[in-house]
């Protein structure tokens, strides 16, 4: 890789480490607080015994299992729909010079800037008309045709040599067969990158789910967490930390396990 890779000067290494420590300290502090009684959160005593009491309390204060289930359903549903819709649309843009191609593509790209959460007033109205207020489908539907996904897949499909498609055609493959047997398998890294970005986006999304849901049965983790952590809910800070950590832990664990793929996917996704 790097021919002239040299080590950083000692001072810079120290600074880089210090910044890293500074960056994780809020999380470490949350762990500390969550594992100790509320009084301990403010009186730092390194020798006090950790306890899982706060996690138990948080689990019973708020319906975390239900929120977690809602989030998992939401994320899975949105991703599945996105993969299908974006594959079809990306394929259309990459391989068909149909009438209105460029205008249609421009109209798709508009969504990169104007995400559904910007248009909350009108989108809420539409959902009310469709009877989808307070449903998980209502949270996910506006995001299913993802301009970003379409763009990413179009770029990937364009790099696949036409000869492969021609060969498959000669063998008697239909158009959708070509898509399924040639394009989709070759675009696997893009799909993985897109899936990670999409899952983390929808796992963390807050404003639109907050507006469109109003019952425990549909609220995802982020909305549950906001209600749980509100000062007026009267829950003490150690319990809030525990709840917060429980809410972020699935994604956090996934990140720690797959951090290399995670970062690479963000890199790939960033180079639009």
């Amino acid at each position, binding site marked *: 890789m790097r021919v*002239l*890779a040299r*080590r*950083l000067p000692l001072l810079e290494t120290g600074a*880089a480490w210090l*910044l890293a420590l500074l*960056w*994780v300290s*809020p*999380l470490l502090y*949350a762990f500390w607080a969550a594992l100790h009684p509320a009084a301990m959160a*403010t009186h730092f005593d390194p020798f006090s015994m950790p306890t899982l009491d706060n996690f138990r309390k948080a689990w019973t204060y708020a319906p975390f299992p239900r929120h977690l289930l809602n989030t998992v359903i939401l994320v899975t549903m949105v991703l599945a729909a996105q993969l*299908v*819709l*974006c594959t079809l*649309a990306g*394929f259309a843009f990459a391989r*068909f010079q*149909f*009438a209105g191609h460029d205008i249609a593509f421009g*109209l798709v790209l*508009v969504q*990169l*800037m104007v*995400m*559904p*959460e*910007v*248009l*909350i*007033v*009108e*989108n*809420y109205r539409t959902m009310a008309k469709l009877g989808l207020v307070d449903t998980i489908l209502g949270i996910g*539907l*506006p995001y299913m*045709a993802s*301009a970003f996904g379409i763009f990413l897949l179009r770029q990937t499909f364009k790099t696949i040599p036409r000869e492969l498609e021609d060969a498959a055609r000669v063998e008697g493959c239909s158009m959708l067969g070509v898509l399924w047997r040639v394009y989709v398998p070759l675009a696997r890294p893009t799909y993985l990158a897109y899936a990670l970005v999409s899952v983390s986006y929808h*796992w963390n999304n807050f*404003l639109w789910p907050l*507006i469109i849901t109003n019952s425990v049965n549909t609220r995802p*983790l*982020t909305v549950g*967490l906001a209600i749980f*952590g*509100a*000062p007026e809910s009267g829950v003490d*800070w150690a319990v*809030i930390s525990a709840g917060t950590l429980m*809410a*972020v832990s699935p994604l*956090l664990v996934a*990140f*720690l396990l797959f*951090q290399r793929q*995670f970062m690479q996917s*963000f*890199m790939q996704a*960033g*180079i639009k």
Partner: protein
Amino acid sequence: MKHVYGWLLLTPAAILLIAFTHYPAAATLFDSFFSTGTVVRPSRFVGLANYAALLDDPIFWQVLRNNLAFALGTIPTSIALALLMAIWVNDKLPARALVRMSYFTPTILPMVAVANLWLFFYTPQIGLLDKVGAMFGAPSHNWLGDPHTVMSCLAVMTVWKEAGFFMIFYLAALQSLPPEIEEAAKIEGASRWYFFRRVTFPLLMPTTLFVLVNATINSFKLVDHLFILTKGGPDNASSLLLYYIYQVAFSFFDTAYASTLTVVLLALLAGLAIVQFQQIEKRVHYR
């Protein structure tokens, strides 16, 4: 035939895109020329009255100023930090993977969760900030309750959350730079700082522009933390444009005025979009 096929493949996505992006954008513009309807008084055409009200609305101007201050306070700092982080973790650094992970971790956390954690740091008396202050004899301060400090508090938290994300783009760009340039500079005896200033930084300009535009767009969309930390207060000192839209629409139920505010937000995003698309165009041509 290929026309039909192309459109058929596109149809499912097109329906959803029109339903949740284009139609609502057009309807928002349309609604901004009408009054908010009630049961006794249906909505009627009022021309530019909503826009006149907007120009006279001190909260709107304050929110716009806040948004500008938020952007100016967070974007340059997080971009500079991101660049520094990327250069560090791109070099040979002991425990590099761990350092890179530390920088990036805040990025994957939900903003709501982040706000929950930071709320405690800013809480008067029992919060971490006051605890540390007390060690040095500083008096207790209501960080989020003081209009002079609330924006800085939110900005610090946002920089912490976003710098690692921008770092990723710089890291990608740095890794695509040809190593020969660095070799040549080394042979010429260029100093590290000189090399960065005259070679690396100019070569990273497209990335910086890309990150800059994205960060600016983000600064108009990021409002999640307000729900936990300040609710836009005290006295709208920390409110941002999208949060104000939410309040007007869902707390004051003035949907026409919310639409008018949304048009302003859309106009801002459209302006940024034009810059962004030029960027994308360039990138596509470079390939």
